[in-house]
């Protein structure tokens, strides 16, 4: 019987494992925290860009629609009571929903721009100008006439924010808009 060859199995000691896990436990939270912060910041920028994009779109559509095609302002869709018509100085009229603020378009039809469950919409076709990603609040549409026999100024203002259930400040993206322009026709 010759001598049996002894195979020595080498493995990590408990202390080595403990040190390795300790270092990993220290480094991994830092790495993930950094990644989380970067992703969170990127999400906030994306949300802000979406909110700005939607807000700018609403302002452009409303301006082009009203300046290009609207001729007068009325308080009901039957287009009877004309508002801010310039017959008296400093006439003003405003609506917080837009549902009692109608324009008469160049074809004589009643058109309104109103707040519809957190979205800005145009009637009578009820076309939403904003999508589900954003919500609108503090909407107001108003008119004012500063002179006699002049066309009125229309002011539209609203706050638009990203639609999220989170209330953490870093998740919120909100912008305020206000635009004023004069009826051309």
């Amino acid at each position, binding site marked *: 019987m010759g001598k049996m060859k002894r195979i*020595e199995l080498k493995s990590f000691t408990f202390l080595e494992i403990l040190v390795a896990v300790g270092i990993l436990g220290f480094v991994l939270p830092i790495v993930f925290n*950094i990644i989380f912060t970067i992703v969170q910041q990127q999400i906030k920028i994306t949300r802000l860009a979406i909110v700005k994009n939607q807000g700018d779109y609403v302002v452009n559509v409303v301006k082009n629609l009203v300046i290009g095609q609207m001729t007068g302002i009325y308080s009901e869709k039957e287009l009877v009571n004309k508002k801010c018509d310039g017959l008296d100085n400093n006439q003003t009229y405003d609506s917080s929903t837009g549902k009692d603020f109608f324009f008469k378009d160049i074809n004589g039809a009643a058109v309104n721009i109103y707040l519809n469950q957190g979205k800005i919409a145009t009637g009578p076709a009820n076309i939403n100008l904003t999508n589900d990603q954003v919500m609108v609040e503090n909407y107001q549409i108003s008119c004012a006439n500063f002179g006699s026999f002049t066309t009125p100024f229309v002011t539209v203002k609203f706050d638009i924010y990203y639609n999220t259930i989170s209330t953490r400040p870093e998740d919120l993206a909100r912008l305020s808009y*206000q635009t004023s322009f004069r009826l051309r026709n």
Partner: protein
Amino acid sequence: MAIFKNCKKKSTGFSLIEVLVFVSVLNLFFIMALTITVFSLRRMKENEHKIVAVHYLDQLKEWLAYEKEKDGISFLQRNGAYCFNNLDWSNPSLCSFNCPGAACLADFYNRQAVFSNNGADVVNVSMSINWIEIDRPVSVKSDVIFSVWEK
């Protein structure tokens, strides 16, 4: 026995130099990654502020267009600088507020415009919005020309 002695393999761990080199390379990598991360985060924060700043510049442009529509004669005769942290004509100078602060726009920005009247019913407005991005000033600028287009 002599043969077995020669075949005996000496099992050793890493030498100190090897460990030092490895740790140094790892540290270098982590420092680079950290630098890139910090730089990237700062740029992202700056971009966020820029989006809001552009919005405030657009807001000023809209308001100026409204003011011109309301009283074109007075508007087209304006000259000099105005601070527009609030949308009114009450501060006829460049903004001198230390931002962030309560007097700043959204407690963070200084928004101003310089009017240069070129005569002939044309006024050139150079708008700018400034803020401090951690340690350096940043600004966004935009120029608009207003004229009496009705003529």
